[in-house]
């Protein structure tokens, strides 16, 4: 190597004496060279300082990596739950934890969204769908534990308005035609079963075309309820289970949409085939079938499909 290797900045600074001016020439072109050389000298110490900062940063990073523990992968049950379960499952999970000591990791969303996520390999153990068609489709695709589909309830939709609303709910769905209404909150019918039910009911009453321009679509039924509960929409078509939740019960009133106006919303739970926690998943399904859990669910408007069918005197089979 022709030149000794080393820190170029240092080497450059070593050459500085070549430019060392005598005091007499100060202020001439040599002055510039002098300033240059000083800049180089400064740079040398700066390089060291930067290095120590970088080192300190790496030590800090290493500490943080150790400090933040990696999440444990197993032991908890990962449940994908339809958004209408947002409130009841808080109580159910607490009860389950109290009885068995096992924790639930709950994710709420629209059933259609979970359906496509599970198809793409989402690592859920259990799927509580607001519409049995999604578990059925997963079954057809071989993605669920055979024979685990369990109809836990039949969902109902209601028209919900805030307390200060002047709308007369006794008119039923026809109230949506009221000209004072600017926005109607509805769940996205493409992937949220409650949205599909709302649209079906509107079609049944032949007012869909008149009101569809006023729709604001929630990604799932909980977001839809949030739109109207927060006063951003004037009226919403939401799940009965949400209307009965503490956060909404005191803030507004509702009227149930006649269940014959839309195809039944049979809700079903299923164990996912890729689950690594099937024993616990089965245990939770068993827990859901226990009488006290059924009673708890009923407080939120989730009645067993058979009971409801008996109530209405009709025996519409799940499609």
């Amino acid at each position, binding site marked *: 190597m022709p030149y000794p290797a080393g820190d170029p900045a240092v*080497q450059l600074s070593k050459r500085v004496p070549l430019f060392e001016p005598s005091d007499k020439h100060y202020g001439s072109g040599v002055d510039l060279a002098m300033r240059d050389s000083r800049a180089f000298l400064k*740079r040398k110490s700066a390089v060291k300082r930067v290095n120590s*900062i970088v080192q300190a940063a790496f030590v800090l990073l290493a500490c943080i990596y150790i400090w933040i523990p990696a*999440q444990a992968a197993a032991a908890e049950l990962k449940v994908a739950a339809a958004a209408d379960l947002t409130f009841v499952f808080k109580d159910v999970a607490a009860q389950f934890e109290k009885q068995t000591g096992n924790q639930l990791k709950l994710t709420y969303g629209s059933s259609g969204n979970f359906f496509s996520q599970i198809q793409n390999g989402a690592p859920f153990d259990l799927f509580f769908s607001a519409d049995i068609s999604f578990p059925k489709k997963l079954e057809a695709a071989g993605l669920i534990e055979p024979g685990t589909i369990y109809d836990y309830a039949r969902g109902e939709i209601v028209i919900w308005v805030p307390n200060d609303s002047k709308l007369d709910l006794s008119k039923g769905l026809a109230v949506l035609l009221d000209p004072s209404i600017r926005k109607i909150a509805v769940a996205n019918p493409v992937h949220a079963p409650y949205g599909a039910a709302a649209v079906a009911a509107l079609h049944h009453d032949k007012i869909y075309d008149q009101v569809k321009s006023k729709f604001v679509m929630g990604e799932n039924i909980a977001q839809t309820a949030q739109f109207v509960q927060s006063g951003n929409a004037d009226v919403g078509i939401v799940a009965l289970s949400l209307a009965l939740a503490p956060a*909404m019960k005191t803030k507004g009133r509702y009227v149930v949409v006649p269940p014959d106006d839309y195809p039944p919303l049979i809700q079903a739970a299923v164990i996912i085939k890729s689950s690594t926690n099937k024993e616990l998943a089965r245990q939770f399904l068993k827990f859901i079938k226990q009488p006290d859990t059924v009673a708890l669910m009923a407080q939120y408007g989730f009645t067993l499909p058979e009971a409801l069918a008996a109530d209405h005197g009709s025996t519409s089979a799940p499609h």
Partner: protein
Amino acid sequence: MDWSAIFLTLRLALVVCTAELIIGTPIALWLSFTRWRYKFLAESVVALPLVLPPTVLGFFVLVALGSNSPIGRWYQSLTGHGLAFTFEGLVIASLIASMPFAVQPMAAAFSQVDRNLINASSMLGASRFRTFVRVIFPLSISGVVTGFVLSFAHTLGEFGVVLMVGGNIPGVTRTVAIAIYDRVQAFDYAGANRMALLLMAFSFVTLSITYSINHRVWAVSPMQR
């Protein structure tokens, strides 16, 4: 306060910004020094995540990592589980999403280094790597710090991509931004508010530190001519 979401977000952001430093630096170097005529194409690709909606990015990543893609299948054969809806998948998606935030400040800083110093370093026999470590890197430290911190802060606040690729699974892919969304949907405005304030304060502090370093409030980076 959802502490598991907070720790998860911090972990994700730290992993991503560190990886960004390792992957982004060579890219930024190449962008600053290449004389390739069509380098603008590469620059556009790097900047794409800035202008694309997160849904587009999320969708592409989801498809690319899903169990029907070659990458997804390869990963599945290695580890036994897919990439989508896992922490690893989130890291990859966030890496792509925050790439411009890391690469652009670094590339800008690299290209502002005085070429004479780089040439001098080579003339004195330093290898390219050594020139980078001892000359280019120290002189562009503020750009590197900016890139590092911006990618960190951006990952903290990323929402759309994380929602699409991660799928909101508690303790695995539910970051603070998604936990807030979740809280709002559950009418838990107080909880959403607490986490939103925390995120805002944290982001403010992070950015303030970066800008203070850049504006030389404290002398931690060398003078540039």
